[in-house]
Each structure stands twice: as structure tokens, then as C-alpha cells.
């Protein structure tokens, strides 16, 4: 068949398909449901025409046009459709705890590195407080000593407003979640970045803890950190686990090609990253609006803090048990 006749016979067909593609691609903006009946059939027809045009060596413009139509059709037909809200609820109830248990080896290693370095530094600094100066510059030591000094803290809390709470909330979001994401991504460097971030944060937090405990500021420091610590510290440990997983996929591909192994471990680490985002968001909220509150008694903060830890641990240990079987 000559090209002109071929074009004449099918032009209407292609235009119809093209307008259907247009409406599918702009669905988000127009907001109305597109007419999709017969889409798959038309798509197969266009694929068939493309194959014919290629085989018969019709002119390049026609082949390009059909190629483009088929490519756009391919993308519309094979795109994944998801319901975000349902996915989010399902993820929090089932997906995240299941993912943490599936990657328990990485979570274990990351937790050991993070909490281990934290405790070790805390104990060392407690018995040798001058150690804090090898970790922090002098001004920061003075800053946080002042912040948790029981005498000055009461004064600061009186002047603290709701706007300040919100400012701190935004600061925690930008800073902490950023650290969580970095810990994951830098795990690509064969895990080294994740390990560095875990140890760095563990040592930094441990030094403050040990130093302030030695000074006897326990009544201001621990009630403040115990609440959000449940979400924040576990969040950072899980971010490290996700980073380690990524690095491990690159380092030890097993029977896959290195590239395939990398893609797979990245995909499997993603639930942990979503979870880190969720945990650190909760942590920022608790830290800004609960931990800092001056109206709550120390007992109330300890009780709530303990139940937060219990909640988080039992969430990971018991959450979605039935779903995973």
C-alpha cells in the first residue's frame, strides 16, 4: 500500500487517539474524568500501524509521528495508578513496621552503632567532663549549659510564646528530617556515609547527655528529651539502616548484576525512608509543642516519655503481625 493511501485511511484514527492522549495527560488540570473507552484497542492499532510503517519504509516524518503516539500511549497504558491516602494509612499501619522487621539486620547494626556510640560517649563524658570540649567548641558548650541550667530555664520558659514553639517546630523539621534524608542518601558510598552520620550524631548527643548529667542538670534535660527521643532517635537509627541497605546492595550484589542489585536495594530501602520522614515529623511535633511545654510536671513528662518509647517499640515489634503472615 502506498503511503498516501495509508495515511488517508488512518488519519482520523490517529487524531482520535491523539486527542484521547491529550485528555489523559491533562486530566490533573481539567479535573474531569477522560473518555477512555476503547483506549487499549486504539493503542494496539497504532502499534500495528507503526510496525507496518517501519516495515514498508514510509517517510521518516510519518514513522516519527506514529512512534511518538505509540510512546505516549505506552506511558499512559503502563503507568501505575495509586491512591495516595489509602497507601499512606496502609503504610503506617502495616508497611512500615513490616519493613523494619524485614530489614532487622540493618536496623540492628545501625541501632548498635548509633545507640552504642551515644551511650559510650555519654559514660566517657560523665567520668571525664572535659571530653566535651574535644567534641564541641567552647561557645556551644556554654550555650547548651545555659539552656538547661535550671535557674535560667525557668526564666526562658516564661517568655516563650506559641510563635516560638512554631519556629522551633519548623527548625526541627528542616534540620532533623534533612539529617535523616542525608543519612540515607550518603549510604550509597558503600555505607560509609550512613555509618559516619550515625556515629557523628551518636557522639554529639552522647557528649551533651554525659556532660549535663555530670553537672546535675538532669531535672531539666531528661524530661525534655525523653518524649521526642522515642521518635527521633529511632528515626535516625532507621535512616542509618536504610543507608546501610543501599550501600550493601552496591557492595554485595550476590547473584544479581551490581546495577540490578543497587536498584533493588534502593527500592527495598524506600519504606524505611518514608518511615523516617513520618517518625521525624512526629518527633518535631512532640519536641516543639510537648517537650518544651512548661505547664507539664516532670512526672507527666516521664510518664508520657516512657509510654512513647513503649508505643514505638511495640509498634515495630507487634505492628501488622497478622498482615505479614
Amino acid at each position: 500500500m502506498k503511503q498516501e493511501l495509508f495515511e488517508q485511511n488512518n488519519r482520523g484514527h490517529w487524531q482520535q487517539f491523539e486527542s484521547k492522549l491529550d485528555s489523559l495527560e491533562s486530566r490533573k488540570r481539567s479535573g474531569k474524568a477522560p473518555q477512555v473507552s476503547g483506549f487499549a484497542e486504539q493503542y494496539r492499532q497504532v502499534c500495528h500501524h507503526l510496525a507496518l510503517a517501519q516495515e514498508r519504509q514510509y517517510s521518516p516524518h510519518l514513522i516519527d509521528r506514529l512512534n511518538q503516539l505509540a510512546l505516549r500511549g505506552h506511558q499512559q497504558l503502563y503507568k501505575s495508578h495509586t491512591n495516595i491516602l489509602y497507601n499512606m494509612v496502609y503504610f503506617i499501619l502495616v508497611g512500615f513496621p513490616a519493613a523494619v522487621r524485614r530489614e532487622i539486620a540493618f536496623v540492628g547494626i545501625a541501632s548498635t552503632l548509633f545507640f552504642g556510640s551515644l551511650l559510650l560517649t555519654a559514660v566517657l563524658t560523665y567520668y571525664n567532663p572535659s571530653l566535651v570540649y574535644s567534641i564541641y567548641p567552647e561557645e556551644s558548650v556554654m550555650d547548651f549549659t545555659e539552656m538547661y541550667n535550671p535557674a535560667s530555664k525557668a526564666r526562658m520558659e516564661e517568655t516563650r510564646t506559641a510563635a516560638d514553639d512554631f519556629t522551633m517546630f519548623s527548625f526541627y523539621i528542616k534540620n532533623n528530617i534533612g539529617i535523616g534524608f542525608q543519612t540515607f542518601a550518603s549510604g550509597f558510598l558503600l555505607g560509609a556515609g550512613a555509618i559516619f552520620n550515625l556515629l557523628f550524631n551518636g557522639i554529639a548527643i552522647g557528649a551533651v547527655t554525659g556532660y549535663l548529667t555530670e553537672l546535675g542538670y538532669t531535672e531539666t534535660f531528661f524530661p525534655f528529651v525523653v518524649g521526642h527521643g522515642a521518635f527521633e532517635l529511632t528515626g535516625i537509627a532507621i535512616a542509618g539502616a536504610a543507608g546501610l541497605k543501599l550501600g550493601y546492595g552496591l557492595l554485595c550484589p550476590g547473584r544479581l548484576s551490581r546495577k540490578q542489585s543497587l536498584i533493588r536495594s534502593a527500592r527495598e530501602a524506600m519504606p524505611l525512608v518514608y518511615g523516617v520522614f513520618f517518625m521525624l515529623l512526629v518527633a518535631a511535633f512532640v519536641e516543639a509543642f510537648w517537650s518544651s511545654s512548661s505547664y507539664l510536671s516532670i512526672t507527666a513528662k516521664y510518664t508520657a516519655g516512657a509510654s512513647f518509647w513503649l508505643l514505638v517499640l511495640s509498634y515495630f515489634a507487634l505492628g501488622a503481625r497478622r498482615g505479614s503472615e
Partner: protein
Amino acid sequence: MLDTYRKLETPENIDLDIHIAGPLVRILAFTIDSLIRMGVQIGLLIALAFLGKVGMALWLILTFVLEWFYPVLFEVLNQGQTPGKKAMAIAVVNDDSTPIGWSASIVRNFLRIVDFLPMGYVTGLVSMILNKDFKRVGDLAAGTVVIYREKSKAAPKWPASTSSPPPIALNLKQQRAMLSFVERQNSLTKERQQELANHLQPVFQQQNQEAVNHIVRVATWLRGGQ
């Protein structure tokens, strides 16, 4: 091979042509995106400064979102195109050319901090140059690729001409060359057209403008015109 076209075999058993985007056009797209992002951040800073402390807090949250999710949101919700990519007519898709999802987009954009190392996206650039699909580290980990998404070109105007059969039998490749010549005719100067047409003098026995006209007649015949 230095070719940037890839064949993608679909489940329908046809080969689609994919045109991979190279480092230069991607750097340009990235520059546009960076400028937009910077502009928005400064604009927000000025607008929110009037709200005092709360405004600054909002600004911090919004810069966090811009910093980490600007490319992710656009890529997932806008057919794989950030504004910069749209301006350069490129788009990011999965390796099998299906639209990119949340996980893949987050992986490829979060790993920018690896691509950035040690400074100014050197790792990403080296990775793109070493890789036949111009993938940076984030693309490798996410299984994505950046391709051209050309707007459909207007059909070339076919010149009005009588038709005549070719003097000898032409094989498919030669026929296609004839058709392609006529479609590209308007983008070539007269002199270049004649220069190209003169290569066929041994076959058509004609020169210069006459040769060009003759090719148009033969192509019109091949295409099916009377």
C-alpha cells in the same frame, strides 16, 4: 556506539525509539530549575517577612520542602517534567519508559547529594559520561533515564508536483532516502538541495534544479500521488 537512540521493545512487540538526553541539556534544565527555586525562596522570604516569627517559621518549612521535594513533586505530578526539564523538552521516565513513581523519584533526587560530591556535581557528571545512557548516580539507583520529549512537529508541506516512476527499481532504503529528502527540503538551502541531488546524476541524468525537481516527482510517485 555514540548513538543516543535506544530501541525499546514493548509488550505489543514493537520497537519504540527513545532519544536519550545528554549532560549539556540536563545541566541547562538544572540551571533553570535552580534559578526558579532560588527566586521562589527569595520571593517567599520577602512575602513572609511581614508575618514576623510565624512567617519565618513557615519560610523554613517551605524551604525544606523546596530543597528536598521540588523535583520530586514536579516529576511525579507533571509527567516527569520539572519546569526546567519542560523548557528543555526533556523528561525523566523509568528504564522501561513508563512514568516515574514516588519511590523512584525520591531515590534519584535524594541521591543528588552523592552526585554533588566532591563539589558541583562532579560525580554525577563523571557518571553520566561513563554511562551509555547518560545516567547519574541517582538514575542508576532509581532505574530511571532522562529522555527527550519532543513536541509533535507540524507535518512538512509536500510540494505540489506531478509524479513519475523511478528509472530503475529502488530498494526500500533508497525509496526512504527519496521521501526523506523531500520532507527535509524546506530546511535546506537551494544550493545544498542541488548539491545533494547532483549525486544522483548517473541515475537520473539531470543536473541542479532539474535534478531536485525530478527527485520530488519520483518521491511523489513513491508516496502514491498521481
